[in-house]
């Protein structure tokens, strides 16, 4: 049985690596496009958020191509993401598709159970090994992303894009730890060499917000690239690997504590999704004198981000760092976004100059 998954940022590479290593038959869904969005908008409830519409649209495309199962992460809420799987299943069944549904809940039992059903010959040792490689790949890709967002302001976007494509290809095809690390080192150097001499006084902006919208360029209309092209250094507060570490592992808890502490005066509880992180990271950026502004990305109707937004006005007033909240949905237009970014940058330039 070939299983499919929704596209989200560069998650497909580590996922495919995992599937290949475990000999799980999969069907890669097409990259997100206008068509995925239109299909999602057509069949999803009107009030659902942009990520759900994209996920549903992408599932439909994959099922059309012959996928026989859908795989998605679940969760205990209260963000709506936790129910994407169940609602997709109901809608797709109603549309007449025939498929199996697998929802990975955040428990070891659920993960192992699902992989055990899907993999041809399953062993715990093999799972561990494949997971480690997939995890490494995710980390390497996101590390490279981080560097290219930072240097992007001083690069021609065609050059860096070509380099990135090359990098992603090599990372996907290799499955040896040493080899992967070597690729990373070489490409980091290559990227740094590409960067022209750093002009002084360029702006620095922090990106916060909903994880799906931050990770998926199609959902955020490639906002990071746009900022880079406007000569702005970008730091994204949220990476999938960082988020997993903070929420599952021991390693990230120190970082998490820092965020909780920073958010304390404005939001004192987890509100699901990335709500608390949005507030905490915005405070951290605002306190850091290197950053000129913060941009919050949220899909229309995103509950955790709405709670966060109510706190951001207060943060902005007290810490005096401009915050731009951008709400995205199926009607967002590139021109509209570009205008607002340019206006925001003008404002930051005037403020710092």
């Amino acid at each position, binding site marked *: 049985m070939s299983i499919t998954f929704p596209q989200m940022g560069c998650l497909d590479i580590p996922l495919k690596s995992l599937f290949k290593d475990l000999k799980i038959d999969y069907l890669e869904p097409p990259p997100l496009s206008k068509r995925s969005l239109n299909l999602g908008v057509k069949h999803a409830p009107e*009030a659902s958020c942009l990520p759900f519409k994209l996920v549903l649209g992408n599932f439909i495309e994959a099922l059309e191509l012959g996928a026989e199962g859908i795989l998605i992460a679940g969760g205990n809420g*209260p963000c709506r993401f936790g129910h994407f799987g169940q609602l997709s*299943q109901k*809608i797709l069944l109603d549309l007449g598709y025939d498929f199996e549904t697998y929802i990975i809940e955040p428990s070891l039992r659920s993960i192992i159970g699902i992989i055990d059903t899907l993999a041809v010959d399953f062993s715990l040792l093999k799972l561990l090994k494949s997971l480690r490689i997939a995890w490494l790949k995710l980390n390497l890709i996101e590390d490279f992303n981080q560097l290219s967002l930072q240097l992007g302001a001083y690069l021609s976007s065609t050059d860096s894009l070509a380099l990135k494509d090359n990098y992603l290809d090599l990372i996907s095809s290799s499955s040896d730890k040493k080899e992967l690390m070597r690729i990373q080192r070489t490409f980091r150097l290559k990227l740094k060499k590409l960067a022209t001499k750093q002009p002084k006084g360029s702006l620095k902006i922090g990106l916060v917000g909903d994880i799906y919208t931050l990770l998926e360029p199609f959902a955020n209309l490639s906002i990071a690239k746009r900022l880079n092209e406007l000569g702005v250094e970008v730091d994204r507060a949220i990476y999938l690997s960082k988020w997993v570490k903070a929420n599952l592992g021991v390693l990230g808890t120190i970082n998490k504590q820092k965020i909780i502490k920073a958010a304390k005066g404005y*939001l004192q509880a987890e509100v699901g999704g990335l709500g608390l992180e949005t507030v905490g990271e915005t405070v951290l950026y605002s306190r850091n004198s290197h950053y000129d502004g913060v941009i919050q990305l949220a899909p229309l109707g995103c*509950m955790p981000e*709405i709670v966060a937004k109510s706190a951001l006005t*207060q943060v902005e007033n007290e810490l005096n760092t401009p915050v731009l909240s951008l709400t995205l949905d199926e009607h967002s237009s590139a021109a509209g976004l570009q205008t607002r970014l340019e206006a925001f940058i003008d404002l930051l330039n005037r403020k710092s100059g």
Partner: protein
Amino acid sequence: MSVKIGIPKTLSYYVYYPLWKKFFTELGAEVVVSDNTSRPIIDAGVKETVNDACVPIKLFHGHSLDLKDKADYFFIPRLVSVDGEHIYCPKFLGLPDMVKNTLKDLPEILAPRIDLRKGKLELIKVVYKIGSVLTKNPLKIYSAFKKAKAYFKRFNSLLSEGHTAVEAIDVLEGNEERKDFDSQEQERDLKIAVLGYPYIIYDPYVSVNMIQKLRDLNVEVVTADMLTDEELTAQSHKLFKEPFWTFSDQVVKAGYHYYQEGEIDGLIHVTAFGCGPDFMVGKLLNLGAEVEDDISFITLTIDEHTGEAGIVTRLEAFIDMLRLRRKRA
């Protein structure tokens, strides 16, 4: 003079007010509530609240503004989980922070975190924490809570008989007679389930008094509160994964229950514009109705502009349709 504790008349008011009221008055405080929802309250809330928020949250801000000069403390518990299993939507979780960040010059906010996922002991701790604002005597606090619980039980039994939350509170406070719904059942020719969150269907202004209007149209109204926990749990197997939001879980299962029993002629899902969890609840109820030939389904969306005439017209049309269908059958 006794301490005045303010409770905004919306959201959890329609679920827990009797419990808190009895608890605080037993401890010697006076409980004050905001005025009934009205146009000025809605407008004030819309003006202040972060613009993407749903109508109920905007309403809550409006009610808080109405109440701010009348109370010494605001009681806005941070409702996370009351049954140790389900949780509330993100906006309930962040409610005290939202209000504090948005509105100025409020009285001190009491915002105990109520999260019973941590076990039974947690309830005892939270109750003490809330009560300790008024007295440090644990015995007094627990005896007050015991009385409050008994009072709250009466409230819930009134709801299960078919009273709305407002009627139930009136009955408890002696302002109204207890209604006998059984005796009226014979005359009513239609039975309709009105499903939605308590702060929408029980707020007479927000719901344009929907439940009473339906009764006036000679319709028997049933709600999710009229079902027992066992009846709701019996529907679990129909869901791939149970909704993790407290109210949504109740509404979906109540809908499934009424579909299964088949005693209703129609189901009205009342939702507020901008409600996050309802993206799923509405769809599940809708899909559930599609396989039922003799049960009709309608969604009524309430927003801050809702005019009474618009909703009433659609309600009447729905009822007319059901009656016509019955005649033809």
